[in-house]
């Protein structure tokens, strides 16, 4: 005999993922947590603060609580255990069966693909090549971005460069901030990045959102981006900056375009992007004038003509399976620098299916690009930048040793500002005032404070880089770039070591 069917209509509501717990013994009922929670996951009811659902673990309440009485607990599994049908797979199915929509997320791929960086061990100098104390001896971290001239010519006592050579940009460390547009992040957040880039003497990407008039004061440290939407491009956006980068792809969403929802297109964003307020800002998937390397060469050339060869023009691609050959084409097309954005790179919004499943880990991509360009005699002419999930100075150092000249970071800079990587950027409710355009939220982020935090973080990374260089007995970061002999692989799959041209642990030189 079967059961009586339930009379209540099922709504397949998903269980909560996180639960904020308030310790009422300590709570002073100041309600700052309730006021600050932009996800409205806390409410004040019957004289106490209670959870009201929808917590995303952004951690704002914990940070703001003067009594230190809130903790956020992950809700334990609410589904019957199953080795194949993970909780997320079942939650995704239930959500999509209700909405029929494409699952959207943000930040980088969050599933537990182990990072290859964690499988790499650094070398150090012993006996035969003495190590260096970076506090007492100079260890050079200055890095140049741009195309290296094959030769110099002297004409009438002046150093001449050939017409097709563009100058190099000097940076104090082998680091740049990735492209994060105004629109995906707030005015204050972008200002903090630009201020920090200026202070650190490195370059920050503008993202594809144009450049706010207030930010031209940082133009010497900004790399402006020309992407498929061509938003906000005007002569000064190309001419007054340090470098221009053509964005073909982004590591978090290879092959996918950008999409800033109309809600985020405020008056300020519409003026900077030069589009009507409240309309979706769509960056097409491809550049419609680039269907080949020859077409890319034309866009590079027109940007060089437009900027009168006074600044480097680069190309950024997502790391994909054939990245080596594509990189070779890009260098042959005339790019002065090349940026490879790995599979774990961040985003303000991307379909989960692409973010989590498409692309190539940046470690492998760097090695593939470095090897291919070296084989073809092109590597010494171009600067290779790489990023996508760089979490620490160790990741940065390993990326350099694998073959990148410059490491691109974005999420780490966000985290320095306050981001807790809760992956809700696409909702525009960022309680830290970073990935939002709501005035009450953006005002929470003080650009001066945020910039100082970013500066401290990356100065510390640079010191750590010097420590490692010194320990390896290397006195200039250029000598680390592509020096894969100073890495060993200890991971589960020796094939990865083979494709990266890195020796296995235990393998020596002789």
């Amino acid at each position, binding site marked *: 005999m079967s059961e009586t069917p339930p009379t209540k209509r099922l709504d397949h509501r998903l269980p909560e993922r996180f639960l904020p717990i308030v310790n009422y013994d300590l709570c002073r009922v100041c309600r700052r947590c309730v006021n600050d929670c932009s996800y409205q996951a806390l409410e004040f009811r019957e004289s106490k603060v209670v959870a009201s659902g929808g917590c995303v673990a952004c951690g704002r309440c914990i940070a703001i609580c003067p009594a230190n009485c809130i903790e956020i607990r992950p809700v334990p599994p609410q589904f019957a255990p199953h080795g194949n049908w993970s909780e997320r797979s079942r939650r995704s199915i239930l959500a999509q069966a209700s909405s029929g929509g494409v699952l959207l997320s943000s930040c980088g791929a969050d599933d537990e693909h182990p990072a290859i960086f964690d499988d790499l061990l650094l070398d150090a100098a012993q006996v035969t090549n003495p190590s260096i104390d970076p506090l007492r001896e100079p260890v050079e971290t200055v890095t140049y971005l741009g195309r290296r001239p094959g030769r110099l010519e002297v004409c009438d006592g002046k150093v001449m460069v050939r017409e*097709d050579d563009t100058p190099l940009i000097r940076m104090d460390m082998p680091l740049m901030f990735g492209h994060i547009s105004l629109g995906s992040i707030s005015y204050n957040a972008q200002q903090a990045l630009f201020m920090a880039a200026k202070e650190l003497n490195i370059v920050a990407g503008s993202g594809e959102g144009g450049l706010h008039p207030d930010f031209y004061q940082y133009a010497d440290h900004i790399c402006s981006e020309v992407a498929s939407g061509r938003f906000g491009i005007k002569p000064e956006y190309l001419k007054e900056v340090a470098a221009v980068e053509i964005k073909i792809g982004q590591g978090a969403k290879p092959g996918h375009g950008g999409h800033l929802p109309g809600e985020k297109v405020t008056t300020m964003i519409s003026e900077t992007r030069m589009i009507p307020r409240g309309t979706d800002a769509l960056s097409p998937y491809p550049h419609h004038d680039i269907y080949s390397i020859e077409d890319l060469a034309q866009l590079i050339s027109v940007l060089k003509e437009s900027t009168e060869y006074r600044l480097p023009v680069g190309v950024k691609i997502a790391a994909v399976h054939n990245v080596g050959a594509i990189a070779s084409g890009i260098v042959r097309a005339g790019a002065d620098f090349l940026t490879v954005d790995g599979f774990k790179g961040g985003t303000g919004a991307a379909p989960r299916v692409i973010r989590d499943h498409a692309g190539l880990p940046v470690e492998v991509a760097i090695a593939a690009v470095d090897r291919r360009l070296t084989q073809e005699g092109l590597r010494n002419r171009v600067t290779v930048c790489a990023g996508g999930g760089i979490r620490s100075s160790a990741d940065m150092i390993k990326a350099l040793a694998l073959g990148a000249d410059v490491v691109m970071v974005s999420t780490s800079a966000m985290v320095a500002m306050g981001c807790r990587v809760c992956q809700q950027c696409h909702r525009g409710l960022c309680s830290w005032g970073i990935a939002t355009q709501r005035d009450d939220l953006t005002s929470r982020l003080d650009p001066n404070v945020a910039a100082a935090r970013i500066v401290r973080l990356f100065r510390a990374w640079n010191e750590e880089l010097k420590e490692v260089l010194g320990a390896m007995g290397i006195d200039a970061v250029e000598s680390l770039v592509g020096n894969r002999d100073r890495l060993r692989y200890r991971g589960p799959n020796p094939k990865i070591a083979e494709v990266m041209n890195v020796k296995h642990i235990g393998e020596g030189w002789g």
Partner: protein
Amino acid sequence: MKDVCKPKGHAHECDCGKECLKVEGDRAVIDLSLSPAQPMHYTTLNCVMRKAMRRGCSSIELKGVMGQRYLASTASAPDLYIAVHGTPGNDLGAFLNGPTIEVFGNAQDMTGNTMNSGRIIVHGNAWDVTGLAARGGQILVKGDTGYRVGIHMKEFGGSRPTMVIGGTAKDYLGEYMAGGTILVLGLGGGAPVGRSLGAGMHGGRIFVRGTVGLEQLGPGAAIVPLSPDDEKEVRGLLGEFENAFGAEVPGEMSEYVKVAPSSSRPFSGYYDKTNV
């Protein structure tokens, strides 16, 4: 290997193309046939054009252009007039910001790429991807255009790009269009537009003289009736076309079809933001 060089970090006053440049008052004439290097390299031609612009010339006449690319990119003087005799190469007037360029011949691909303001008048055909991502200014083409013309044109504030094509346009006209106006007259006969018209458009408007079948429309595009304001805009553009080319234009409004986006928010409801 080019035979020109310039001091690094200095103003780019060099000898590039000096044989070809004649300046009288504020009028410059650049005759490419006088160049010792034939054909003249585009970097040389652009360099000599910039030299004329820096001298404050209000008109630059180019003679004997043979496919040189990237002419007048980011040129910004609003009163500058550039006459091009011959055939300019790809990316003519890219990022153009004010000047008027008149081409007495055909233009190649990507004319007016990402232009901000100014005018480009082509007394011939202009081929693929003309007016890509333009957000202001005007492009007038007397003859036919190729594929993917007017892709991702947009508008902002008082800045609205307009394009009039005297002949026909091929497939994907106005794809991804986010603003601006395209008018196709189909004067030489034949189908005025191809397939996938306005695919993915979420702003702007396309007027076509003649018939547009529903099967020619791309996703996101719809045929809607012309409003009195639309008729006024079409008449205004017809007037400008007539002034530019001295051609007779048909002004019977019943012959025109308007194609407009079915939504300005094509992705609303497309995504599921559930925190899975």
